[in-house]
């Protein structure tokens, strides 16, 4: 297997070709727009909450397969979770991204997101994988503040 296949797992390419929740829903509690200034990738992300639960996350953007798949996976993973659970999952994902390829990720917590483990071996691509997660973090803080 090529080393590159660690990066471009099937799951990632699937999400890239069929991104989930990639259509901005008009009703939201917070909307953010994040840019990766080193490559020009952009994302707009909407979050709506139901008390402490995440009712919906929708997004639109342009970017590489890693950034697009990562946010797609994020929406699958976090919609319906409580903010507390989302925090735990986000922390786990951050930890995985910083692991320099030494960890596989906990599939019970991260589900499809473990497919992104290979990204941690490519320092230049970690920020691609984190673009959507940073946008979600920002949007959820704003949405909570509004409530």
């Amino acid at each position, binding site marked *: 297997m*090529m080393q590159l296949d660690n990066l471009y797992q099937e799951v990632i390419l699937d999400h890239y070709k069929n991104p989930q929740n990639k259509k901005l829903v008009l009703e939201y509690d917070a909307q953010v727009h994040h840019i990766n200034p080193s*490559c*020009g990738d952009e994302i707009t992300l909407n979050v709506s909450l139901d008390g402490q639960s995440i009712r919906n996350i929708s997004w639109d953007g342009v970017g*590489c397969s890693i950034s697009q798949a990562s946010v797609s996976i994020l929406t699958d993973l976090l919609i319906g979770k409580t903010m507390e659970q989302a925090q735990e999952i986000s922390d786990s994902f951050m930890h995985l991204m910083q692991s320099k390829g030494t960890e596989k990720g906990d599939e019970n917590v991260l589900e499809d997101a473990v497919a992104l483990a290979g990204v941690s071996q490519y320092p230049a*691509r970690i920020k691609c994988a984190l673009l959507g997660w940073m946008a979600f973090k920002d949007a959820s803080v704003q949405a909570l503040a509004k409530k």
Partner: protein
Amino acid sequence: MSLNPYEIAKDFPILSRTIRDGKKLVYLDSGATSQKPNVVIEAESNFYRMHNAAAHRGAHQLAEEATDALENARAIVAEFLNAEVDEVVFTKSATESLNLISYAMGNAEPGNRFHLKAGDSIVVSEMEHHANLIPWQQLAARTGATLKWFEVTAEGRLDLSSIDSMIDATTKVVALTHQSNVLGTINPLTEIVKRAHNVGAVVVLDACQSVPHMKVDVKSLGIDFLAFSGHKTVGPTGVGIFWGRAELLKDLPPFLTGGSMIENVTMTSATWAGAPRKFEAGVPNMAQAVGLGAAFTYLNKVGMENIHAHEVSLTALLLNEIQDIPEVKIVGPLDMNLRGGTVSFTVGEIHPHDLGQYLDSQGIAVRTGHHCAWPLTRKLGVPATTRASLYLYNTPEEIHALVSGIRDAQKYFG
């Protein structure tokens, strides 16, 4: 005499290393930074090994040798550009050179020819690297001057149809890239320089992508100021050049102040040394300047005409082969008329980051993204491109490797 890139490549030790599981390195990112020949690496380290002392200071032999080495490098650069020795200023980078002139103009008092105020204008182009856009954009904001710009046509050429209204009596500066770092376009300067001088404006040339690749003669170009970086021209990082015509440097106020740029100092005032010292506050990057001198000596030996001819022939080969690949779209001129060895392109729906990553897995180093020219890539409607930039050590085999790498990437992501 033509150039043998296989022989040239032997002078660059990094080109014989392997990467990513033993793949041969195919380095197609010289537009970002060039690789260094042994003579440059040796010259830089030999300065530290044998001659290191603070140039233009100290009464000892090492200080004399360091001064000689620095000034010898300046003379080499001056000769390379067909400039006067005292017109050549060492900076740390092209970015610093462009900030030097824009901040220096911002320091000019009313009455000084470089003073800017509301009602004046600065002209740039849409194809500028951020380093030749933001300093002028911010100078305009600080002084109240207006920033104007030449647009870029769909073919990636400057639209000069509006030149007479663009450069008018209000224009004080025209700051332009010589060769686009994204499109490869070489800008025609004669008409622009003539028009600028007719209205009393100065022309600042960003020569980062031209000086390494072709003969640049500041006198025959007729320009007023020029900036480039050492590291793109087989020289070390940490050294750049700012050149200006002597009579203009006399009137240009300093940017950085401090040691060795002065004539006389009291507790409350100071007067300035003449150029180039006026613009070289602090101990200069001597070892890097010496390395840059060695770089130009090396390039002279190969011959700038040979280098340019080699790059033109490789670029023509690349343009020809890459356009046979389905879904490849070149962003920039398709013909070799006024065009250098920088080729940006998109490949269908494959994001440049993904393409770059695939090529890297094959040992091929390219640049991806907006190449620090975000307004340009936005204008052309491509959020990012992949860029191959060629230099004297690249070979036809490497062009073939890139082309088959792109085809393989299409299969991989298809």
